[in-house]
């Protein structure tokens, strides 16, 4: 197996985007391999036999699975530049808590917004906004969740920004109207090359969601 860094990924995945951002922040050269999730490669199945999911980070032939795990691993191995987790122990626990919160809530609620209609969709929209407002509270008046510097929670959350347009179109609402501070934060992050280059185009994401709705027979 080759040395170096390989990322098995799927272009619309917010989870894959986290790892792409972390690798870009650390200026790590890597090989990006696009997976067709309807026809998973032997390498993917071999490297992630338990979940069979992307992203998978392969470093010197050994796999690291789960995006937040990958971000922490990248931060620990390439610890001489662009730190993502804070140095302070308490702040580190706090960063892990909020990244975990994003994992527990944002993906499922966002999915419900584009997959459902009527009461179920309204409930999902409301809870989604409530969660974003909690995150806004945590951000406070800081430039980033990491404080002055872009950090772990920023990496965990910002990939969802390129999915917001699709959620808004499907749910017929404006996230910026409800959470202007969060959108301002996201636009600030997009000015960073590592983020701008890692996130997918929001129009393409919306097209992808429309395609998925057709495939799943959702109106």
């Amino acid at each position: 197996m080759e040395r170096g860094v390989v990322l098995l990924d799927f272009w619309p995945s917010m989870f894959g985007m986290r790892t792409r951002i972390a690798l870009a922040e650390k200026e790590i050269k890597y090989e990006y391999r696009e997976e067709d999730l309807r026809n998973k490669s032997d390498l993917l199945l071999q490297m992630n036999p338990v979940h069979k999911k992307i992203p998978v980070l392969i470093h010197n032939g050994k796999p690291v699975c789960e995006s937040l795990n990958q971000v922490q691993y990248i931060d620990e191995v390439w610890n001489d530049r662009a730190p993502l987790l804070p140095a302070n122990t308490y702040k580190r626990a706090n960063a892990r808590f909020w990244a975990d919160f994003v994992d527990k809530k944002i993906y499922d609620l966002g999915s419900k917004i584009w997959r459902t209609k009527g009461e179920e969709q309204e409930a999902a929209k409301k809870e989604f906004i409530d969660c974003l407002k909690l995150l806004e509270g945590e951000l406070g008046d800081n430039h980033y969740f990491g404080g002055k510097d872009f950090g772990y929670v920023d990496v965990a959350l910002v990939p969802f920004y390129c999915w917001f347009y699709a959620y808004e179109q499907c749910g017929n609402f404006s996230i910026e109207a409800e959470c202007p501070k969060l959108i301002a934060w996201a636009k600030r992050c997009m000015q960073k090359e590592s983020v701008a280059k890692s996130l997918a185009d929001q129009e393409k994401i919306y097209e992808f969601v429309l395609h998925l709705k057709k495939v799943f027979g959702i109106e």
Partner: protein
Amino acid sequence: MATSEVKVLGSWPSPYAMRPRIALNLKSVDYEYIDEKLWEGKSQLLLQSNPVHKKIPVLIHGDRKPICESLIIVQYIDEAWSSGPSILPSDPYDRAVARFWAAYLDDKWFPAVKSVGVAKGEEAKKAAIAQVEEGLALMEEALGGCSKGKGFFGGDEIGYLDIAFGSFLGWLRVTERFNDMKQLDEGKTPGLVEWADRFSSHAAVKDVMPDTDKLAEFGKMVIAKIRAAGAAAEMH
């Protein structure tokens, strides 16, 4: 250090609440344990300390804001009391492996264990049991890889993955008892059977591991409540 400088809010039947306590014991840190009887309602202290999830365990360390989520707490304890024995492995790859398996146990395996008790019908029950056994086979293999021939996932001493997995042993034993079967089996998972004994009798664990009989009684009560709620829901 005053005993009350470190507090753990927990609930005795909860596997998650065991984790910070084992970690603090490993580091020889004195702490005050506050037991929440969650089935009677949540205390003001809990709601104030964990407003986001309103769940135990919570670690309160001095006058810092409380820390929530059991595995995040364990990592915090490891880093805050760095002079004690290490809980997470020192190598970044080994750490990633330990985190991966702990997340698998929390997200996939333990929900399968819980569903054995409340599965509707034989088919669903068999499927849940199969998932539990598949997980144990994976963990048997992981033990071989992580322990490198030593007694624990963490090597010579209990580590992060031992704590994450071992905290579920009580409920696994209760599930075995209720369903009259052996899932931790010398034939299929000999390594895990020995590890389970070693873990349960460890000084940092034995006073924190709930007694299986007591847990079984509690389990009966919970299952009855869930079934009743399910029956009531079906009636409307």
